[in-house]
């Protein structure tokens, strides 16, 4: 029953994208080894995403399930830095697994910076940030053609304001799935 519903979700997802690879792995075959990635089913979660076995949900619903690590999408950085802190590794691993299990789906990684300094340097820095996330996703099983890395530089701040709180929010890479950008 569970496998069936997950397969249905995977097919629905794949239908949204242009390419579908035939050698897609069934989701149930993948075991979670990421520490801290175990999601607890929430009472309010939609039925399709609930995993009664205690394993993390890996269907599309998990992307929106606040209790799933897959609902987390953002990597935050220090000023003028693009290295990915260890804290974000479980989240990126979970998304890499999702991409691996859903070979037909695609992801857009958008790199952002805070407003300080030059717009052009920030555009290049945002690109380095998104490329860094893309590289880690690929090392963990995502495929090159699934993931596009782009930069918005300082042009689309999530939080307005010239203060450290806003700047910290805006130094960020976001992992987005079709329909989310």
């Amino acid at each position, binding site marked *: 029953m569970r496998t069936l519903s997950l397969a249905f979700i995977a097919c629905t997802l794949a239908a949204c994208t242009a390419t579908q690879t035939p050698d897609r792995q069934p989701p149930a075959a993948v075991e979670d080894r990421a520490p801290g990635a175990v999601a607890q089913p929430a009472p309010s979660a939609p039925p399709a995403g609930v995993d009664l076995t205690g394993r993390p949900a890996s269907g599309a619903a998990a992307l929106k399930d606040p209790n799933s690590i897959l609902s987390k999408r953002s990597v935050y950085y220090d000023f*003028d830095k693009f290295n990915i802190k260890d804290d974000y590794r479980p989240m990126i691993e979970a998304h890499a697994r999702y991409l691996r299990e859903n070979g037909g789906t695609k992801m857009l990684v958008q790199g952002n910076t805070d407003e300080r300094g*030059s*717009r*052009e*340097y920030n*555009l290049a820095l945002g690109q380095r940030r998104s490329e860094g996330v893309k590289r880690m996703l690929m090392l963990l099983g995502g495929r090159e053609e699934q993931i596009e890395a*782009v930069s918005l*530089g300082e*042009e689309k701040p999530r939080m307005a304001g010239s203060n450290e709180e806003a700047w910290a929010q805006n130094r960020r890479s976001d992992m987005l799935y079709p329909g989310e950008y």
Partner: protein
Amino acid sequence: MRNLLAAAALSFAACSGHAQLSIEITGAGAQRIPVAIVPFVGEGALAGGANAAISAIVRADLERSGLFRGVEVPSLVPAPTEASSVNYAEWKSRLADALVLGSVAARPDGRFEARFRLHDVVKQSSIGGVAYTMSREQLRATAHRIADYVYEKLTGEKGVFSTRIAYVVKRGSRYELQIADADGANEQAMLVSNEPIISPAWSPNGKRIAYVSFQNKKPIVYVQDVEVPKQNIVANFKGSNSAPAWSPDGTRLAVALTRDGSSQIYLINPDGGNVRRLTFSGGIDTEPRYSPDGQWIYFTSDRGGSPQIYRMAAAGGDAQRVTFEGSYNVSPRISPDGRSLAYIMRNGSKYQVALLDLGTRQVQVLTDSDLDESPSFAPNGRQILLASIAGGRGVLTAVSADGRVKQRLTVNAGDVREPAWGPLLQ
């Protein structure tokens, strides 16, 4: 050349509107030349409505430079013209060092003739004068030419009152690439989009502007004729395409592309042909700028661990580091005489415009604001236009190269940013 028609989300406005950019002088030079600009006889026939009188425009231009102070002139009977003989002692008693007299007359063909003469009151002699034939629509342009003449005769440097500036205005979620006269008049939208527009750059002849637009959800470099509302794609490769800079002869653009990995510098023709990679660092290389003699390209790179300014031969090759003080130096702009470099320097928690004398290696910080960006030299090198934040809004500031004279340019209900000062009128 690949042409792209305007997409639905974009619109162009070729018509010019009223000035929306207002200018406030917030500092002035210590020594300003007192100049008496007497209302031109007959100028009232042209003034009125949105038109100021020629003499008022000339005075406003000269005062805005921070180098001149207009002397109040009583009404004179009979009103003197450029042909009148001058009582220099009388003008000396009014504390004027220079005097401009002129007149405007209608011609039989419906056009007008504006004449003026500039006098040196101290030396008690005429410096010279010019007569211009003009249409009613050329009133402001003619006044700017007169101001340029006065400025050049009295300072020895070219005036920039006839030049134009480009900038980006953000109103809500709307972005406008605007061009306007250097005094903010005749604002004209080149591109309006719901996505960001950055890095406008004037071609050396002032006829085209290269810029970066995110209208297709990613940065792409376009070139657009100032008079023709049509975009031409220059660089649209995988990843980011940005930071266009014209070669001094206008035949090439240096750009930053991420098509081969991290941001690197490439040369490309304005029609998108003949792409050649210039830098091969593993890090970020961006913001290329040609030196005025075309020999060098200055650029920003983090190859040494922090963003600094480097330069290399315009044909590529080894780069030398140019900035050493501080951990964040970006946005290099070479002065028109090639002798100094303006850039954005991180100064504690502030980002300010610094000027490096390339001969003496002396660095001077020109601004006292917090978040300066995008410096742009006036074509005579006397002023630098830059973007900063004041009262939570994006404003432009023009600062003299000695840091003394400051003007603030604001727009109604919007953020203004990304200034680019156009070339001298040819």
